[in-house]
């Protein structure tokens, strides 16, 4: 989730002959968890998320030679993961939120205390997840990269191929939409 500062030194310390396999192993070690998590939040299904993560790393392996700027590894792998997830979503046409989709969460009152007090726990996770999955894919990817991965607008722009300004606008819209979806899940703020 957080930036992986160890990755860059490891890359640069490698000698050329065995760099590809070693680099890839490090890449996988550093990013397997974050990429799988990102994929899961994007597609909303563990099996499909595993497919996305698998394809992401296979593509990364094949394209490792194109990664000339080693400091850009994080944006690079997320760019692959994001494109792969979007492909996956397009193929499945729609993401069905897990649980009782379409059963009128919007009318459901928040059963517990304020959301700040319940930031742990599966129930809360499920509700946030459902809200996320009802966002447009481009809103969801932007929000995840910002709030889950802690990327700046500039870094998100590197991943999505967008300008800094466009990312700021998109992120604002995504937050507005997420606010509405959270309200539909019973969060009152």
């Amino acid at each position, binding site marked *: *989730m957080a930036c992986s500062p160890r990755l860059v030194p490891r890359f640069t310390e490698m000698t050329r002959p065995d760099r590809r396999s070693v680099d890839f192993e490090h890449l*996988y070690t550093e990013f*397997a*968890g*974050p*990429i*799988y*998590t990102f994929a*899961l*939040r994007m597609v909303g299904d*563990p099996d499909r998320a*595993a*497919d*996305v*993560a*698998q*394809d992401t*790393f*296979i*593509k990364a*392996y*094949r394209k490792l030679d194109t990664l000339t700027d080693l400091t850009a590894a994080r944006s690079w792998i997320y760019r692959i993961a994001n494109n*792969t997830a979007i*492909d*996956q979503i*397009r*193929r499945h*046409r729609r993401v069905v939120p897990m649980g009782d989709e379409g059963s009128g969460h919007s009318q459901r009152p928040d059963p517990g205390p304020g*959301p*700040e007090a319940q*930031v*742990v726990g599966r129930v*809360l*996770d499920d509700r*946030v*997840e459902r809200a*996320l999955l009802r966002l447009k894919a481009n809103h969801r990817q932007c*929000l*995840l990269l*910002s*709030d*889950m991965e*802690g990327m*700046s*607008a500039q870094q998100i722009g590197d991943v999505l191929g967008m300008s*800094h300004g466009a990312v*700021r*606008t998109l*992120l*604002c819209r995504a*937050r*507005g939409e*997420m*606010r509405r979806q*959270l309200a539909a899940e019973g*969060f009152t*703020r």
Partner: protein
Amino acid sequence: MTTRRGPHPDELISASLTGDLTHAERGELNHHLAGCEICRETLDAFTVERELVAVMGEVEPPRDLAARVRTGIEAGRQAQRPWWRRGGGLVAAGASLATVAAAALAVVLVSNLPIGPIGQGGSPEPSASATTSGEASVSGEPSASGTPSETPSGAVELEPGQLGYLSLVGEPFTEPRLYFVNDATGASVEAQAPSGPILSAALAPTGEWLAYITQKGESGANEVWALRISDGTTLHLGCSMAAPFTDRLAWSPDGVYFAYTLVADDLGPTSGCPANDREARTTDAWVFETGTLEHYSVTGSGDAFAASFLPGEAPTLLVSHAGETPWSEAVPLGADPSDLERIEGVFMPLVSPDGNRALFWRGTMASEPGGWAWSFSRGGMPYVSGDFRSSGPASPWLGEQLFADLTTPGGAAFAAGLFSWGLDGDLVAFWGGAWNGTPQGGQGTYPDDQGVYVGRIGAGLLTVNSRLANLPRAIDAQDWIVDVTFTADGGDVIVTVGLPSAGIGDPPSSRLLRVPLDGGDVTQLGGDSESKPWDGPAVIGR
């Protein structure tokens, strides 16, 4: 509490959460927040939202993810390659079949593209994707979309000797576009896009129609199509389980009939490939009539493959029957079949363009359980017939082995393979040979499934030295040979080379290479798309 008039700076509020504000923006926002309750609520809501997403936490990936990635990397060269054309012949094929069957049953389709009806005979509905090269919808496409010809000029129909090829471009899975391109004029016509790469193609002798076979996504099935080149009318002629010897397309000499092979299966009601009237996993020869646009089965034995047409005015289709000892028969279309001629031991004869000879297979065949997916289990070898005009009392079908220096110790031989004729009826090419025995000669690499072997019947049979030496320099070790077509003058072959894929999600891609038979430099055709294209196979105008 008062609310400031004017637009609320939501974008600045959003950017403030990640410190993406300039000093001036920060000042502007603070000033606004001091007097705007709505924006303070927005800031609170955005802050809570950000915290809720941030604390969702990292999820442990599946334990087998690393193994899946490793397997995927190692299997990259195999993806999209027909299972019988992978290394190891039948031995490897057996293991793959479970995957193919499972995939077919699960209907793992990557696309919901509209597919025309599969018939129990009848007239397929033309697709609405008829677009000619001269129309704006083709010529106006931006280059990023992968349109092969931005400013088409001249006719798309091939004049004698001109080269054309299919090109599948665009965003894979969501916006695939299929074009037939006249390489000489640059003109193209768009056809209905398939959900997978093109495995084989055959141009009608009249040049009016193009028949081709594509993979149906990742379902383990193939689809057969016919394209009317003049207007892009695309007809879907059926689905087939992918199996050896089903990628042959045969046109009658007059261009009226086109024959193909379907292995019946039901991929499900939403697949666009419902069951036809044949029992599942039975193989039969089908025919499409260009005049009536009807297509129908011409056999019902469940073991029949469309091979090629005999020369002559009356269209007569050679049909091969798989079995331990295969055989073939001549089926006159539109005539009483009572005078059928049975040709023992001959499988999938491919009559030369001049009608004087045929390439065919001999050997002992075996099938997968259930009697489908036939291939050679012992002694499978390609043969060339004698000259039908001067064979004397001996049957021309006795023939000679196409490879003069290959032996079949213990019955080890080819499980399957592909061959083609040059237009002169003398040049022959063989490729994609699934050799299931011990390699012979050629530094232990003969015959090589990545090799293309070319020779002239009049100058002797194929040998280890017939392999095109300039092709390996132009391709990578993991590439595979999809198709080989001779140019009209016989000076080159146009080779469709499939590139390795990373598997699910990675679009299929290929290169179309012109390979001079004199050993000259290999050059690439097409490939001007910014997306990964699948270019090929090529066809030649006659």
